């Protein structure tokens, strides 16, 4: 269970997110949506312990800060230097860094875990490729494999569906379903729209504050959308009660 209570983040003198409270039960996939600058990435970074925050964030009752190894993070593709001299295998092996510990080499078990993760995302045959020589979808899968190899309980994914192919999307959705069945918690920042939002168990609608937190159909109402995105949003030819689902 991830519990967030009264979380606020002051980013260089600006209150980027304010008084956010929500809870996510194990085995749920939750989407976080909101306009650009709504504070989605800021919220995730604060939960990861990368930004100072006020409020409380707990996983299974204990502060999130002390359980960082149980949190896996998949960054946006644009944040990574794809020309870095590293193979897909070694990117996934990074997930084992803290488990391996200082001054030690990865164990055989770690190597097996990395192999299984790459196999799960269908990339084992490309494991020795330099990451820049993979397609966008394959690159996204490398980072998904890294998150899997960390064997975390809580997964934060920042726009994982941006710019990927159908095959990668199918593999990712399959992995998400397995993680849900294993009782893991997934929080996914998303830029999607329409039917794609149905894949989430719940949606958090964010624009500096938390505007809605419910099932997709209940969140994506005209009223909520206008509160988040502004009054001028063009919503013609949509049923008023459920315009975006």
């Amino acid at each position, binding site marked *: 269970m991830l519990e967030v209570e009264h979380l606020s983040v002051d980013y260089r003198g600006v209150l980027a997110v304010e008084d956010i409270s929500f809870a996510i039960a194990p085995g749920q996939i939750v989407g976080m949506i909101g306009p650009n600058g709504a504070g989605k990435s800021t919220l995730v970074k604060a939960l990861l312990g*990368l930004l100072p925050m006020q409020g409380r964030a707990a996983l299974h009752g204990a502060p999130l800060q002390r359980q*960082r190894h149980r949190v896996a993070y998949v960054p946006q593709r644009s944040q990574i230097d794809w020309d870095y001299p590293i193979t897909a295998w070694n990117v996934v092996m990074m997930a084992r860094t803290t488990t391996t510990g200082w001054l030690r080499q990865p164990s055989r078990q770690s190597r097996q875990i990395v192999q299984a993760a790459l196999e799960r995302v269908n990339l084992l045959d490309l494991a020795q490729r330099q990451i820049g020589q993979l397609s966008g979808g394959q690159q996204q899968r490398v980072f998904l494999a890294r998150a899997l190899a960390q064997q975390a309980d809580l997964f934060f994914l920042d726009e994982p569906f941006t710019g990927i192919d159908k095959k990668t999307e199918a593999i990712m959705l399959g992995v998400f379903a397995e993680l849900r069945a294993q009782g893991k918690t997934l929080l996914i920042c998303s830029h999607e729209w329409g039917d794609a939002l149905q894949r989430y168990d719940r949606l958090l609608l964010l624009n500096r504050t938390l505007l809605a937190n419910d099932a997709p159909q209940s969140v994506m109402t005209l009223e909520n959308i206008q509160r988040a995105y502004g009054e001028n949003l063009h919503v013609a030819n949509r049923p008023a009660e459920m315009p975006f689902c």
Partner: protein
Amino acid sequence: MLDWLLDPLSYEFMRNALAAGVVIGILCPVVGTYLVVQRMALLGDVIAHAILPGLAIANFFGIEMLLGAFAFGMLSTAVITWIRNQSRVKIDSAMAVTFASFFALGVTLLTLLQSRFDLEELLFGDILSVTATDVWRTCTIAVVALLLIRLFYKELLFYTFDRTGAEAVGLPVNWLNFGLMAGITLTLIVGMKIVGVILVVSLMVGPAITAYLLVKELHQMMAVGALLGVMASVIGMYASYYLDLPSGPAIALVVFVLFGLALLLSPSQGVLTRSWRSQYARKSTQPYVKK
């Protein structure tokens, strides 16, 4: 030919210089690899200039030059990081302003404190001045630095590839950064004795980017970079000895020639290799096109 190779070795200064050259030929590219992959190649240049006030002060008070240089090198990286974190000024501008002001302070202090300091030797290096003590000091620093890189390789790899991810899993990113900066500063200080302040960066960055064009992993980049660094040092020193060239520029030019060759001829990424490959591909498909 053998005489030609052995003749310089009959002089002690040349033996010292070659030994130090080989050691920094290994050390500079290995440490420089981290500058290259973090897109901070110019930081080497900044630190190399920023240590000047430290040298002037150490010289004046008669304390160990290495300490003064190290203190100011680290201070400059701290100032850059502070400017970047506290304002919206980007890192390139922060580096430019720090580098210029530290160097200016250094030159001013040299004048004010009337240091008997050969600025030209500092700027361009002087193989004649390398002593046996310098060689041992260089060796010690190199062994410690290489050992630390070996021991913390996986953490440094994680940190330099994905700082956010490394911080998120709880790695002490500030300490890793401090360690890297300390390693870079020390490497520059021992390297500048041979090639000079201005050109030490060529030995840190040149072999590393040459290797970057040839291999696909960080540790391979270090190994190939070290090999190229040693080649450049040794070839440069012999050129310096026989052609009466200043040692620093000779080494830096060899580094550039090696980089140029890799840029043109790298099997995977060479400019010429690519164009030959596409020409060959065009020729081999032509018969089918005609049909």
